Each structure stands twice: as C-alpha cells, then as structure tokens.
C-alpha cells in the first residue's frame, strides 16, 4: 500500500487499519496452522495410547491371529487381512465400473442426460455409511445368499474362494457394497480428467476414423493416466477405512477364512464393534494400535494419491 503520499491527518487511520490487518492475518494464520497440527496430534495421540500394546506385543502384533480379550492376547493379522481383501474386492469391481461410467458421462450421453446421471451418481456418495449398512444387512445380504452366491458357487465353486455355505454376510458382500460406495469418488475425478483432455487431441483421433472406444483407450486414458491412478488411490483410501457399512455385513469374526463367502473383519469394523465395550487397559490399547495401523496405511495412500493428482493438474496447469 502506498504510504508516502499520506497527509498527517490520515496517519492514525492508517495505523489503526494496519493493526487491524495484523491481528486479522494472525487469526487466519493460527487457523491454518491448526490443520497440520491436528494431523500431527492425531498421530501422536494414537501412538501414545497404543504404547502399552506396542511394548507388550512388539512386531508380533502384526503377524498374530490371536484375538482373545479374556487372556488379553491380541494380534492384528485377521483385521489387516480383512481390510486388504475387502478393499481389493471393492477396487476390482469399482475401477472398471467407474471408468466405464465416466466414459458414458463424458463421451456417450447427451449433455442433459449426462448432468442428470452425474448428479444421481454423486448422490451415491452423499448417502451415509450406516444407511449402506442397513440396506446391506437387511436387503442386500439376503439377495446375495439367495441369488449371487449360489450362482457363483455353481460356476466358480472349484475355486476355494467361492466355496462354503451362502450365508449372505461375509467378505464378498462387504467388498461389493464398498465398491458401490467408492464408485462415485473415483468416477467424479475420472470424469473431470476425461473432460479435461483437449478436444483437439480427441478430434484428431476421431478424424483418423477411430471409434469412441479407440479414442478412449489409446488417447484419453494414456493422456490422463497419472490422474486416473491418483483417483483410484483416493477411492482405495475410502474403502480401507469405511466403517459402518462393513461392520453391518462382514460377520465380524477374528478368523481368516479362505472362502470369500466366509465371515471376517476389518480394522475399522473391529474398532466399531469392540471399542465401547473394551474395559481392560490392554484391550483398549490394542484396539488403538489397530487404529494406528489404519492411520499409517491411510496416510500413505492419501499421500500417494495427492502427489499423483497434484502432478497431473500441474502438468496440465489447471486447478489446485
């Protein structure tokens, strides 16, 4: 701000506003600082609360399948396994679905239809986790038990993955519901990426006589690949920590079952189920150590995804 041309009578006003500006700026800096501090605070609090379990079980915590509140013997293996497997099922289903959906919204549907369908898909992301849980447990799990699981058992039953009684609840059902839940997140970003690919590039390919699929496969996807991977990891992060929907349908068993029809658990579902009932200090501490593991996995996935998306948006010099 120019100050040299001020007359003497202006000075008090100028000083008062400078003081106001300094206070205001400090307030905004403090608020901005709060967010990274919270992030670090969460990590430290989890670490601090899980110290007793860390000391007692050491690295064995990661490899033990024990989960016995009576003898206070705890291991995270089944929860970690369940978290990874349910997420894997979700991604196997959600990634092709959301890519196809983004293709539909950007290339195939007329603009008005695309807007309506796009909004409906976005609403899938707005539905609270617990509602997916209610629907999953009362409606979708019986549907799985009556139709999908018997059919899978008949056709793919020679694989150990699809053996066992069709109970409805279990790893597979949890994975499928997770897929529906992360679909809108991956789709939203993929759709942006697809529509950001310069039209000239696409038109050049169309001009050569390429079909819509060939343009997508050979031009659009390679062009936005980094961002698409970023979007996939964003969805992966969501699936890893989804709590309520999974808790309702996964069966909550601490045993690892080879069949995807079997019951299992995830880190988040174990926490949701057992935390408020845990009374002994070692039990609580072990549960918080589970939380610490989930925090570290989520942090790594988020960091990777942010990095990719940032790199892509920067190289396209848009947004962020």
């Amino acid at each position, binding site marked *: 701000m120019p100050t040299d041309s001020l007359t003497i009578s202006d000075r008090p006003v100028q000083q008062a506003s400078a003081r106001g500006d300094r206070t205001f700026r400090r307030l905004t800096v403090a608020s901005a600082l709060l967010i990274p501090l919270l*992030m670090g605070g969460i990590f430290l609090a989890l670490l601090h609360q899980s110290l007793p379990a860390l000391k007692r079980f050491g690295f064995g915590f990661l490899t033990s399948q024990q989960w016995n509140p009576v003898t206070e013997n705890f291991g995270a293996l089944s929860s970690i396994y369940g978290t990874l497997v349910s997420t894997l099922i979700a991604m196997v289903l959600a990634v092709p679905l959301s890519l196809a959906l983004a293709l539909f919204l950007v290339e195939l549907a007329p603009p008005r239809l695309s807007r309506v369908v796009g909004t409906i898909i976005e609403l899938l992301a707005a539905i609270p986790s617990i509602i997916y849980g209610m629907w999953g447990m009362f409606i979708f799990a019986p549907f799985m038990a009556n139709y999908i699981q018997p059919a899978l058992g008949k056709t793919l039953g020679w694989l150990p993955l699809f053996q066992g009684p069709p109970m409805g609840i279990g790893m597979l059902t949890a994975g499928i519901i997770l897929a529906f839940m992360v679909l809108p997140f991956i789709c939203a970003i993929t759709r942006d990426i697809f529509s950001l690919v310069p039209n000239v590039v696409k038109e050049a390919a169309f001009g050569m006589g390429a079909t819509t699929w060939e343009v997508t496969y050979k031009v659009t996807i390679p062009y936005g690949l980094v961002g698409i991977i970023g979007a996939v990891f964003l969805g992966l992060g969501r699936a890893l920590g989804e709590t309520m929907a999974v808790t309702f349908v996964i069966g909550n068993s601490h045993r690892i079952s080879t069949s995807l029809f079997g019951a299992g658990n995830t880190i988040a579902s174990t926490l949701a189920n057992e935390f408020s009932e845990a009374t002994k200090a070692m039990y609580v501490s072990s549960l918080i150590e589970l939380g610490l593991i989930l925090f570290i996995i989520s942090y790594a996935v988020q960091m990777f995804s942010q990095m990719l998306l940032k790199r892509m948006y920067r190289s396209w010099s848009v947004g962020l």
Partner: protein
Amino acid sequence: MKPRPAAGRRLANLVVSSLATGSALLGMLILAWIVWVVVSRGLGAFNLAFFTQLPTPPGMEGGGLANAIVGTLVMTLLATLVAVPLGLMAGVYLAEFAQGSRLADNTRFSANVLIGMPSIIIGIFAYALVVVPLGRFSGYAGIVALAIIMLPIAARTTEDMLRLVPNTLREAALALGAPRWRITLSIVFRAAKAGLITGILLAVARVSGETAPLLFTALNSPYMMTSLGQPTPNLTVTIFNYAMSPYPDWQQKAWGASLLITGGVLALTLFTRHTLRERKT
C-alpha cells in the same frame, strides 16, 4: 500397418458402449434401490410418538426417538459453530494471504489427507483427547470429533470459493484505502456468499450422517440429554444399536431414523447442488 477389419472394431466399440451404459444404469439402480427400501420401510415407523416421545425399555413397543433427534441436532449445530469460523479463517489464509508459502502447502496437504482419513480414526482421537481426561463418554467428545471432520472440508471449500472472486474487486477496494480485513469480510465474503453457504451446508450434510466418530465419544443414551457432559443420544448410533437388536419394533425404529437421516442429507445435498449450478451458468 495393416488396417484391422472395420466390423471387429465396430463390435468392440459397441460392446464397450453398452458396458458403459450398463454401469450407468447399475449405479442409478443401486441408488434407487437404497432410497426405495429406506422410504418404504421407514415411513411405517413415522407417527407422532416417533418425534415426541422417549425410547421404551428393550422389548416394549411404542415410544419414540425424540431424544436422539434433539441430540443429533444439538451436536451437529455446535460442531458447525466450532468448525465453520476456524475453517473460514483457514480458507481466508489459503486464498488471500498465503501466496505459495510453506504453511499453505502444509495446510492444504493436511486438509486433503484429513478429508480422506477414516472418520473412526477421528473418533479415537476425540476419545483420547476428551473421553480419557474427563473419564466418561460425553456430548463434548462427540462435538469435538464432528468439528474435526468439518474443519478441513470448510477450509478447502472456503479457499475454492474465495478464489472464484475476481481480483478486480479486491483492487478496487484497496484503491479506496480499505484495510485487508475489511476487504475480506465485507467485499470478498459478500461476493462469495452463496458459494460459502453451499460449502458449509455440504459439510453439515456430510457430518450429520456420521456414526463411526460418535460410537465411542458421544456413545448413546435412552434419556433426554440434560448436559453435554454425559453420554448423548443421537440418531446414527441409535440406528446401529436398534438394527442389531432382536426386537422388530426397534428395527422398525432404526428404519425410521434411517429415513430421517437419509432424507435430510439428500435434501441438503440436492439443494446445494441446485444453487451451485445456478450460480455457474
């Protein structure tokens, strides 16, 4: 290069196009299915008692969820009052003052990571921060958890919305000699008002359906809350407890509560989408 036969290429294109259309139909079908189930099962639970009475003891029919409705409203409102001013200020820093500083990079990164962090982790943090020192589950802990979830969302949307305000407005105000804080509060905020309100409403919608961060902070309670220092009843944890119970009457109430939450969240989301779109075009 030898050209591939046109028929095969057209077939591949057709297959992929139908798969794309199919996945769009599947997505819409799932949403319609969920909404239909929630509405058809939830409506049956609605009556005057549902909104005005307290829960009955286990196994007894009748009663309502008035306490949980009040608890959810109070906790969401207070969390909003805590998180929104802080989020607005952080957003102002990012959009108006930061100019590529390291603090801004850190804040933006942490906010993005926090937005994607599982909400149950935030619940454990609030447990360690509030429940452990106080020695009991309380509404305060629930409010802290919800506010932590809202804060980064509010900060990032504020930044995005303030960036949409053209610089000429700021320059015009600066030329008149207005201090930065006046410019931000009375010029930039006013220009971005609709966007800011939309962002806040979206954050409220996101938080009002949260269950995981309340499970071991606010817990739940069958009584009307008298103070936030005690376990505080709320709709989402009630849904969880009632759905897992063996009583049909409680399960029906869980569906009623689901309809209330889903209806509220979807209405808020649709409303904000609508206003955002009108502003854009």
